[in-house]
């Protein structure tokens, strides 16, 4: 029984959800720290960012972690969808009249929708930059590194890109607003002394991280050089 308890049970699905979710949160911090370099739009900043991108796609330890990351995203999404299907089945007949907002926040009930939108964003985002970095036809910069910077700058010179990225970060913010503290509860970490701190940190993280991510395309759009 104990083995299936760690794989198939409702609680186990939530442990995996929480662990992969928190791992993705750690990734977000690292990803943000690296990408904030894009705010430096000078030629030196371009070379620095491209060197960083090369390091991130070739250094073995980073590569191993990135495979773990892809697996986590897929597993988190898969597990989340299974949970949601089971949750729908648990209430085949809906209430004709329901005041759901009286007892819970809308985004805590819409984690699957928010998650799917984040997934759509991740796919688009990986196509835009990750795929191009690995297999796309990219020019070289003065240091002989693939010029990812120019690709990013060109994308964020277009209003549509900026809009999609900013909107996606709003979606991510709501996902994290509930998700961060929820993960601790799922792992059994709820204590009257620490839960208020976890909740506060969660809200700060949910607002600050997506805000800074969104700042990058906006900044690059505003500061885009008209024609190269």
């Amino acid at each position, binding site marked *: 029984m104990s083995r299936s*308890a760690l794989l198939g049970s409702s609680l186990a699905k939530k*442990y995996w959800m929480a662990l992969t979710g928190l791992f993705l949160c750690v990734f977000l911090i690292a990803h943000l720290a690296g990408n904030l370099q894009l705010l430096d739009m000078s030629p030196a900043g371009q070379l620095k960012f491209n060197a960083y991108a090369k390091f991130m796609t070739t250094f073995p330890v980073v590569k191993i972690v990135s495979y773990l990351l892809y697996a986590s995203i897929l597993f988190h999404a898969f597990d989340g969808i299974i*949970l949601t299907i089971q*949750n729908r089945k648990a209430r085949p007949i809906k209430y004709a009249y329901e005041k759901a907002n009286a007892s*819970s926040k809308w985004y805590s009930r819409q984690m699957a929708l928010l998650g799917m939108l984040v997934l759509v964003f991740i796919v688009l985002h990986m196509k835009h930059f990750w795929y191009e970095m690995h297999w796309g036809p990219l020019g070289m910069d003065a240091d002989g590194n693939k010029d990812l910077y120019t690709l990013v700058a060109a994308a964020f010179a277009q209003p549509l890109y900026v809009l999609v990225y900013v909107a996606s970060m709003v979606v991510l913010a709501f996902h994290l607003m509930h998700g961060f503290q929820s993960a601790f509860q799922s792992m059994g970490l709820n204590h009257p002394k620490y839960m208020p701190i976890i909740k506060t940190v969660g809200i700060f993280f949910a607002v600050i991280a997506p805000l800074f991510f969104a700042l990058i395309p906006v900044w690059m759009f505003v500061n885009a050089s008209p024609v190269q």
Partner: protein
Amino acid sequence: MKLTLKIWRQKGPKDKGKIVDYPVNDVSEDMSFLEMLDVLNDDLVRKGEEPIAFDHDCREGICGACSLFINGEAHGPGRMITTCQLHMRKFKDGDTIHVEPWRAEAFPVIKDLAVDRGAFDRIQAAGGFVSVNTNGNLVDGNALPIPKADADTAFDAATCIGCGACVATCTNSSAMLFVAAKVSQFALLPQGKVEAKNRVLAMVEQMDKEGFGNCSNTGACEVECPKGISLEHIARMNREYLAASVTKE
């Protein structure tokens, strides 16, 4: 006061059911919600119609029998109360009141507003007990010291009346708050620790089998629970279950 009631009527488990409008006059604001339904039923019987089936027993908020999803909330508006403790002064003359049964795959409708909450009993039977040897060797209660804080928390958990409002209000029809309360009331006490691992594994297994949804930690159950059972008990169950599934042979 005068009210319009929109009540779910369903002849039996297989009937499709529908919402039927009932105008009621002469409702006193001192009536409890159940008394108001009694008056309506009295009227229906006099007219030769089938009275509305709903669960009730103690009518003082301690048995957990009364249910009802009233105006979009489990046990209606108001916090820390059951439907028998809900009074008509919470409503205004001319109000329309929606009354539906608990909605969950695991709580099938028996008739009208009465649902079968046997799933809770089966979860309880799977492990919600302490095995006692009844050979006459009684142990003095004071021989077993229990920290006051633990006793209090265990007691808080034990105040769960098994009403099912947590399931009814949860967007996933999850029974986590109920099961967590039943796990916690034993897990915190030395008598309960002996069987703690088996208990949590067996009760969660039964909970999953009954077809309740998973917990999304929305917290709606805690808000609607008439006994104020805390989400901390769910966290305790999550810990207990994790530890038990890792360490049990």
